[in-house]
């Protein structure tokens, strides 16, 4: 009797163990969750000879975070509901001060390689539709020849404390002839991407940023290509 029971017990044990694993393995590992939503808009500045010279970037912080920022800095809106010049200038100074490693929610890639951008210039802050709007330009330190291949910008923030998304079709400024843009917005319903995202989340945070094109798989992406 015992001999006939034992293999069955073992089989049950194995079944049970695999069931447990099956239940637990697909559970999502930890990721951060967003507290601040940032709508971004990208403008490509193209120079003569189809060279990408600079990016014009706009952030719009959600209305709740806008209220928080104004409250935290002790800034009251003026009679028109806008910002006083001094307050705009003060906020511009704050937003121009980037901590090391911060990429402004927008990573520029060319041929899959990360491209260096200069510090933000001409930074302006105002209120638009109750949202803090920050606009600035970043020069591409070594301008990219677009004839060689398309330029790509991945919009995301690694820790997901900020949920940064592309809010509008990118624009081309300057020598736009022969150049076109397209967007690929992250779709969580895309099973393939979702699977990649799930496996990415299993990596430690230190592992992902080394290959930005992998991290960018779950970001919104915009592309600029010229004939």
């Amino acid at each position: 009797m015992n001999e006939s029971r034992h293999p069955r017990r073992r089989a049950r044990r194995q079944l049970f163990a695999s069931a447990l694993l099956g239940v637990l393995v697909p559970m999502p590992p930890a990721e951060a969750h967003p507290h601040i939503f940032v709508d971004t808009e990208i403008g490509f500045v193209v120079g003569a000879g189809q060279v990408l010279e600079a990016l014009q970037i706009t952030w719009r912080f959600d209305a709740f975070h806008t209220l928080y920022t104004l409250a935290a800095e002790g800034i009251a809106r003026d009679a028109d509901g806008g910002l006083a010049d001094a307050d705009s200038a003060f906020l511009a100074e704050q937003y121009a001060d980037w901590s090391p490693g911060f990429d402004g929610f927008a990573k520029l890639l060319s041929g899959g390689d990360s491209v260096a951008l200069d510090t933000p210039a001409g930074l302006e802050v105002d209120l638009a539709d109750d949202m803090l709007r920050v606009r600035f330009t970043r020069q591409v330190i070594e301008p990219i020849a677009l004839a060689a291949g398309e330029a790509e910008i991945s919009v995301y923030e690694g820790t997901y404390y900020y949920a940064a998304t592309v809010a509008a079709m990118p624009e081309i400024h300057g020598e736009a002839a022969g150049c076109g843009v397209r967007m690929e917005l992250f779709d969580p319903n895309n099973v393939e991407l979702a699977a990649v995202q799930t496996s990415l989340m299993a990596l430690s945070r230190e592992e992902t940023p080394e290959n930005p094109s992998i991290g960018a798989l779950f970001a919104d992406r915009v592309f600029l290509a010229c004939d």
Partner: protein
Amino acid sequence: MRLIAGIVLIAAVVLAVSAGQGSYDAFVAWAYAQQRVFQNEMASAIGALQHGKPGAWMALLGAAGAYGFVHAVGPGHGKYLIGGVGLGSRVPVSRLLVVSLASSLAQALWAILLVYGGFYLLQVSARQLTTLSEAYLAPASYLAVAGIGLLLAYRGARGLHRWIRASRAADHPSSGHRDQPDDAHHHHYGGGAVTCGCGGHHGPRVDDVAAITSLRDAVVLVASIAVRPCTGAIFLLVIAWQLDIKGPGAAAVIAMGLGTALLIGTVAISSVAARGLVHAYGSRSGILPMAAPSLQLVSGLAITWFSIALLRLALA
């Protein structure tokens, strides 16, 4: 027949969970989109409140409650802890619901105390408050939760160890009983439910697998979650203090806590139900003495794993 039914049940659960992974991501994405909607609604309600518009109070409370619910879908807020405890321990669902509610409300009250108290008594800046929360209290909470996970895993491992020893003792009756003279008193499965056909088979007492049996356990659980105030609550309280709508701000944060409690409560109920399925199958097939501590061990390790992952993210 029962075995087949059990296999079908477990296979169905595994399939549902695996197939649900893609839709889980979609669900989280949906929840974040909703969070943004309710964040905007809170902002509008605050504007309406400042202009003394009727209904602004209710709009703020409603938006904050909904925000608390959808925001808690993301990691943190004690979901893994409550879910893991519910899955791994013989805790009644009512008690786990009380702990869910208490932890969410304590988290809200702690946020109010921290922000209003910090502004009033210590004249701290909003930035110092968020830094305190993100850089110190969040990691402290993750550490505490990881500690509880380890404790849970330890209890499970101890139970499993006992079961293994008892199984060996069943195979070699002469050696096992010397170590455990009290084992005869440890059959708590009642009514001979363990029909293993091996007279000397002793497993862990089911009581060993119980958690939150004391007020102390409950307080530790609540404190480990509540020590880290929700960032959304801090944002709202800073706004409320600055715009001098302190009363509505505090009330809205309590509503936010109730919304969070509703989601955590759902997790609590689901986890207890899942444990019920496993235990029902386990006692039918006679593997409960192994299954219960295994479940506790694995859920304890899972809690620890998630907490350490969040800790690394917080410290990175």
